[in-house]
């Protein structure tokens, strides 16, 4: 494995040898890979987290070109290329997908849509598989604890899905049809329509797949090929965006995300009972935001309202250990929030941000603790402040900035939390080197499931407490080639763990402690006149259980010590009004354990998977036609991300897209 690894790494890195010098065309990225000269306070896109992190915290931004190059199906495919990100995939495309950052579980990842939380603290882990990537323009990942900036539960980091397309005067309409292995059929339509000072964009996606991929399985000593059953997914998604530029510096906007997913839940593959053949999950999700943004200096403000309603219905008639008719349970959740942000420029060197957030979450369901009844509720008031000082010596090129942030959260059913954060950035004169450091505390409020779910919930839970520290350096090799190295430490106390109380009952308890440490190395570059784009990310980390007991000092389950990813996107040929591109990438996931205690019987071997795709684009007047062929898991590697959830082998996708634009 090591030999193949070196070869792959070398292949991915080698083109950097031929990188061009400073280019002349590409806009500079806002992520930490390429340093930004910040000689005075700047204002970035309000929906981007770069405004939030201020450069002192690692931020990875994946733009539309890279998203297209990866052939991503949902945003987690994109996040997988970010250092420190570990995507847990429960089988093929129909399976659940969660994102964990820096060894903190997926419950420590806050997901935002255009800078607004996609659900509150009580929602639990987000499943990315029902979020089509077609409606995402850019993915941003803040690595490391960010509670002071993004609110409770961001103990591992933040994923922000930017759906907002840059408004302009061009009308664009697009449609794409995709067919692929294992019964995949997807249709996407979308468009952007400017009407005076108003701008609308809309995307609709319908996806159906059977997910009946074959896999090798050794059942009672006999190895055979089995087809996955009950792994189908039927997903309808809708995204709408509206922006009204009332006057310069004043905007009113709204976003709508809706989805309806119906899928089989085959579960883990075990001998004698390979799949749960009749377990089904229906999820309906509606998320809407509306906001007013006023950006005149020196005082700017924003008011935002968000609401998210979800309905979840799980049923498995065969699960008779839960009753005569099996499991048939339904939960409905409503989450409403009002957010006010104020921004004050005191001078060219000092800026202050303030946030007030009021949130109400409620859940109704059947299998809640009898003491809780059939409805539970949580109110949350958050107050956050950020002060940023920046000093620049334009003659010498030196720049210094310091960020001080604090957030206080009050909950109706939980103890309150305070999360301070201190960060700084230092640009070393004319050297293309930028140093940054940050330390902060955070907390994760337990989900409703951890508090109230029948036989498991514990109403006496406290929020998890965490401290995270990181420091790094960014080296700008050329204007279009950058390398970043970041070291990090994390310590989580009062970790919530389901604890067996007796042979028949479990209960969530604040008992665990986890420490993690690691190094993230990332490189990105555009070269050969932007005909070649590369991204590389390597993470070496160590996440260990520090809870007194038999697992003290041992590796945490599902915390691989090594992650490596790389993508390339190369324009192979260009001609008048057309281009041919080849893109690909690979992901290496180091070995990890599925259960505590480093039990070898639960070891999941390391795996390397490679993808390759090619795109052909031709313009016919105002119409652009794009054809794409893609092969995922090129080497047909048999692997698992989550134990007993076999992943698909080599598979194919073909798509044809048509786009019409008034832009010539």
């Amino acid at each position, binding site marked *: 494995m090591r030999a193949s*690894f070196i070869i792959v790494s070398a292949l991915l890195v080698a083109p950097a040898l031929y990188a061009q010098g400073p280019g002349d065309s590409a806009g500079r990225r806002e992520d930490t890979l390429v340093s930004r000269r910040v000689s005075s306070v700047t204002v970035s896109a309000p929906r981007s987290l770069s405004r939030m992190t201020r450069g002192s915290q690692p931020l990875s931004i994946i733009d539309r070109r890279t998203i297209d190059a990866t052939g991503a199906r949902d945003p987690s495919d994109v996040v997988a290329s970010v250092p420190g990100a570990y995507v847990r995939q429960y089988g093929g495309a129909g399976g659940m997908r969660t994102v964990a950052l820096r060894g903190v579980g997926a419950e420590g990842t806050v997901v935002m849509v255009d800078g607004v939380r996609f659900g509150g603290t009580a929602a639990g882990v987000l499943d990315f598989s029902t979020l089509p990537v077609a409606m995402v323009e850019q993915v941003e990942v803040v690595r490391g604890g960010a509670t002071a900036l993004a609110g409770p539960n961001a103990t591992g980091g933040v994923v922000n899905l930017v759906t907002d397309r840059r408004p302009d005067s061009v009308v664009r309409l697009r449609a794409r049809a995709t067919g692929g292995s294992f019964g995949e059929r997807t249709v996407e339509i979308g468009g952007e329509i400017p009407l005076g000072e108003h701008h609308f964009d809309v995307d609709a996606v319908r996806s159906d797949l059977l997910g009946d991929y074959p896999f090798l399985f050794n059942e009672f000593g006999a190895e055979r090929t089995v087809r996955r059953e009950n792994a189908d997914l039927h997903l309808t998604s809708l995204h709408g965006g509206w922006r009204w530029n009332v006057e310069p510096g004043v905007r009113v906007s709204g976003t709508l995300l809706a989805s309806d997913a119906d899928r089989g839940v085959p579960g883990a593959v*075990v001998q004698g009972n390979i799949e749960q053949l009749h377990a089904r999950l229906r999820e309906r999700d509606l998320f809407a935001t509306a906001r007013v943004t006023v950006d005149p200096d020196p005082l700017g403000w924003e008011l935002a309202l968000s609401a998210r309603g979800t309905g979840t219905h799980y049923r498995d008639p*065969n699960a008779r250990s839960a*009753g005569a008719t099996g499991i048939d349970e339904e939960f409905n959740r409503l989450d409403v929030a009002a957010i006010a942000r104020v921004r004050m420029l005191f001078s060219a060197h000092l800026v202050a941000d303030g946030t007030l957030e009021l949130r109400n979450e409620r859940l109704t369901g059947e299998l809640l603790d009898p003491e809780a009844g059939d409805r539970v509720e949580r109110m949350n008031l958050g107050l956050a402040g950020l002060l940023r000082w920046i000093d620049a010596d334009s003659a010498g090129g030196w720049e210094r900035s310091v960020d001080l942030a604090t957030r206080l959260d009050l909950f109706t059913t939980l103890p309150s939390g305070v999360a301070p954060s201190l960060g700084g950035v230092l640009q070393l004169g004319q050297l293309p080197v930028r140093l940054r450091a940050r330390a902060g505390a955070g907390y994760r409020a337990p989900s409703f499931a951890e508090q109230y779910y029948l036989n498991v919930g514990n109403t006496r839970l406290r929020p998890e407490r965490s401290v995270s520290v990181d420091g790094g350096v960014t080296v700008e090799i050329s204007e279009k080639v950058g*390398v970043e190295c970041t070291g990090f430490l994390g310590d989580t106390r009062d970790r919530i763990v389901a604890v067996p109380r007796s042979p028949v009952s479990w209960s969530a308890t604040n008992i665990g402690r986890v420490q993690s440490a690691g190094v993230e190395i990332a490189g990105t570059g555009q070269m050969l006149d932007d005909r070649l784009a590369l991204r590389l990310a390597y993470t*070496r980390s160590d996440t260990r259980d520090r809870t007194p007991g038999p697992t003290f000092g041992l590796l945490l389950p599902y915390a691989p010590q090594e992650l490596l990813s790389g993508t390339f996107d190369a324009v192979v040929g260009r001609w008048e009004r057309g281009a041919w591109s080849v893109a690909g990438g690979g992901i290496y996931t180091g070995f990890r354990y599925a259960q505590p205690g480093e039990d070898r019987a639960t070891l999941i071997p390391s795996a390397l998977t490679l993808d390759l795709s090619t795109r052909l684009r031709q313009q016919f007047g105002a119409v652009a036609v794009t054809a794409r062929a893609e092969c995922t898991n090129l080497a047909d590697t048999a692997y698992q991300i989550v134990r007993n959830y076999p992943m698909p082998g080599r598979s194919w996708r073909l798509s044809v897209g048509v786009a019409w634009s008034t832009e010539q």
Partner: protein
Amino acid sequence: MIPSSIARRLLVLLLPLIAGCVSPPDPAPIIEPPSLGRGVIVVNEGLWRSDAATLTLHNPVTGETIQDWFGVSNPGLRLGDVANGIVIHQGRAYVVVSTSRTVEVLDVVTGRSLGRIHLDEPNELRSVAVLDSAHAYTVSFGDSLFLFDPRTFTVTARTAVGPAPEWVEVAGGLVVVANSGLGTLRQTEPGAGTLYLLDPVTLHRVAEIAVGPNPRMVRLDQTSGLVYVLYGLPGQQGGVVEVNIAARAITNRWTVLDARDLALDSARRRAYVLAGAGVLRIPFDGTAPVLHIDSSAAGAGGFFYSIGVQPSTGDIYLGTTRGYQPVAATIQVYTLDGAYRTGFNCGVYPGDFGFRE
């Protein structure tokens, strides 16, 4: 800008060198399982849907222990998902593997697999009992009792029983099924909280005895022919009832709070109940239960998960979880006087014991 040629070479050198530098641990060596003679077989459930049930074999005289005895004795084979019961009969061990819907039959001396009965049944199996070389039984949460032939490993009959049958035993020439009703979930259904007595060949029900809420274990006293039934809801008053199968009558009852598991010591005329307080001793003479081993003996963060008694010595075996994680547990061994004797490691969630004597 720094010299780009240097930076690029550093980049090229750095990443390939660090990639793949963490090696997984060496695989466990394959060993030839020694013949340990007499000993105890611990059934380790494993986590649900992890396909990781195991057996631990321990010789109490030499102190030798073999983990995953089934896997070691049968290279390439794994027991299955969630094993939760064992019966030893005429040189064979019958292990019921719940989620895999199998009863694994193995040679009790060598540990080699002799075959398995795989039921075409969507619901979990719960228990196994053996009448003779041609008749064995298992029950499933599909409210069914199955008769199978251990010689051919085939199911020969199936019949409906009460709600959520959790245990099957053979006593007094009849098959005894405990219909738990799944605690409070199905306790109002007809048959919940009862024992069904069935003909061992035709599987016709011949009697029904109400014993109390949530009966989930039936242990046969080979000496007297009486059966002892564990019942009660979690955290509530329950206990043990003594049933004379021939007379179709309850002959004694002991009340115990939060009764969880039951083991008999026929030679010494007593039973042990694992409860929230610890291990309670129940003399068969009808006197009140007495605390025999306090639950604090499980250690900080641990608790007693299961109980078994070695017939010849009367030693008490307690499956004991360690800490809060689903990790390899330990077995604590106590003398019949309740004094700690020794301990050994086992697998995840030790749920039952079989004694090879």
